[in-house]
């Protein structure tokens, strides 16, 4: 019974596919899974938009949307109808082909990332040997779509926003990859299913999730920071800052194309949180050994939604970082910490089991964090304002 619940989607897929002739079955199975992903994540996106608006509102001492449907939960339907029926304005001097392809490319690359995420036991679309590398390859291609959007609008503010966005995404690509590499170092494989399986052991009821190790915790924090920057989310949302460059690189987009950008951003948030869950939070594993009877996909999606709520919480709490502050932070703080984390992970691996490696690794990481933190904070020269005039 428990296993049936756990494998219910796999069994459903097999049952549906069994109605077709045997030669069509593998392709049909894959197509069915793809259809499920393409239907599920936009639905989750709709739900997230309403949660975000209501969550941010409650943080800001006000109610969110509460007119459409019970407690406002049909608001995304209203938003969807609005974006579908708005006029699609393409500026006359804009590059029409590139202008059209940019949101298409973004949505394609973002959805491709879901192909390697294990959403439950035996619930991966494609079990690639180099799954993690595939995921990051797709993430890197999304940056090109952002640039295409900004350039094709033939608007200097869009271009500026696009350049800023691409610079930000590139700078944080390095910490993102390096904080994932520590997981690969310990697991010994790039395959996401093996990474999840390596975290599914329990000691005294507590799981072996990588976040509970010193290097995993540091890696998770840096992964979280890099993720927030990659998806242009507050506090790193200068490229799309509504009070800065109107809407950054998607200023000139209206109607459904804008909705596609919005969708792309949120679905990217889902997939990168899904990857973070897989790498550091144990994927579809239960948090305590006595809770393993709950289906694995429930755990995966709960952890995913928890990450999304933390994203929304951060958005409601933190002010926006300026472009140079953002870049300084990436190159001067996060990257050195990532490199140190690699070193510490190596130490962890080769020190052997025992309490000593916990103490040593934690001590190194905490000292480095405190030291670099002090250095960063002492650099804040808060003196009287100085002016620089154009010559």
């Amino acid at each position: 019974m428990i296993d049936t619940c756990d494998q219910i989607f796999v069994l459903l897929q097999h049952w549906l596919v069994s109605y077709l002739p045997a030669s069509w079955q593998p392709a049909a199975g894959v197509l069915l899974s793809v259809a499920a992903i393409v239907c599920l994540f936009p639905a989750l996106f709709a739900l997230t938009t309403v949660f975000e608006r209501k969550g941010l509102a409650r943080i800001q001492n006000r109610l969110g949307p509460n007119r459409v449907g019970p407690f406002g939960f049909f608001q995304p339907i209203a938003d969807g109808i609005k974006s579908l029926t708005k006029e699609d304005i393409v500026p006359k001097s804009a590059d029409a082909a590139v202008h059209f392809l940019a949101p298409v490319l973004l949505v394609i690359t973002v959805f491709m990332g879901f192909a390697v995420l294990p959403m439950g036991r035996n619930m991966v679309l494609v079990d690639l040997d180099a799954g993690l590398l595939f995921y990051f390859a797709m993430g890197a291609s999304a940056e090109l779509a952002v640039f295409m959007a900004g350039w094709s609008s033939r608007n200097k503010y869009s271009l500026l926003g696009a350049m800023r966005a691409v610079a930000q995404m590139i700078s944080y690509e390095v910490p993102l990859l390096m904080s994932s590499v520590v997981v690969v170092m310990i697991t010994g494989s790039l395959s996401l299913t093996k990474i999840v399986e390596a975290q599914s052991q329990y000691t005294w009821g507590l799981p072996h999730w990588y976040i509970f190790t010193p290097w995993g915790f540091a890696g998770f924090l840096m992964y979280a920071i890099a993720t927030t920057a990659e998806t242009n989310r507050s506090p790193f949302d200068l490229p799309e800052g509504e009070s800065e460059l109107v809407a950054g690189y998607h200023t000139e987009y209206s109607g459904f194309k804008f909705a596609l950008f919005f969708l792309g951003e949120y679905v990217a948030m889902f997939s990168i949180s899904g990857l973070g869950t897989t790498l550091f939070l144990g994927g579809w594993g239960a948090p305590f050994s006595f809770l393993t009877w709950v289906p694995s996909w429930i755990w995966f999606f709960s952890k995913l939604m928890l990450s999304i709520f933390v994203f929304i919480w951060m958005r409601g709490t933190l002010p926006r970082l300026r472009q140079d502050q953002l870049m300084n932070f990436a190159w001067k703080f996060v990257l050195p910490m990532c490199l140190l984390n690699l070193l510490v992970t190596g130490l962890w691996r080769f020190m052997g089991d025992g309490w000593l490696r916990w103490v040593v690794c934690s001590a190194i990481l905490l000292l480095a964090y405190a030291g670099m933190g002090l250095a960063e904070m002492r650099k804040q020269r808060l003196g009287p304002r100085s002016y620089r005039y154009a010559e």
Partner: protein
Amino acid sequence: MSFVFYLLAALTVAGGLAAMLLKNTVHCALALTVAFAGLALLFLNLDAQFAGFAQILVYIGAVAILVVFAILLTRGSETPRDGVFSRTWLAGLAIAAAVFAVLGWAVLGSARVLPHETAVPEVTVQQIGVALVGRYVLPLEIVAVLLTSALIGAVIVAMHEKVGHEKEDSK
């Protein structure tokens, strides 16, 4: 030489041709990106997963963006003042033909030297990693030093401009 190979080869060649023949420089850069994608898919067709995904990550995710930035930050995106085609196109054609001949000779010649294997060897990422730090550690380290020097050079170039401006201000 299956149908998929011909399709991907056509995509790559079309991307390369478009990168050469299109008028708008940024369109050329995007067509080059399509050629890179075609190459990556060819690698994947040969079951070289690591090479294919690394191609996408490095070439499309970084090199294409670098090319595009270079076009934008220089005057490459404006309409050219002089003609697009250079006057020394005959010499260029000769050199291109010579390079193609050398590459073709090397590729066809190497096919004779390689052992004829019936089965495709399963190359895992672990084997690539072991080879990189085992047999090919010297090229790896040289490439690392090269990249580091490029990074330092970029920082120095950017820094010198700021120092120059400061000197001007103090006058």
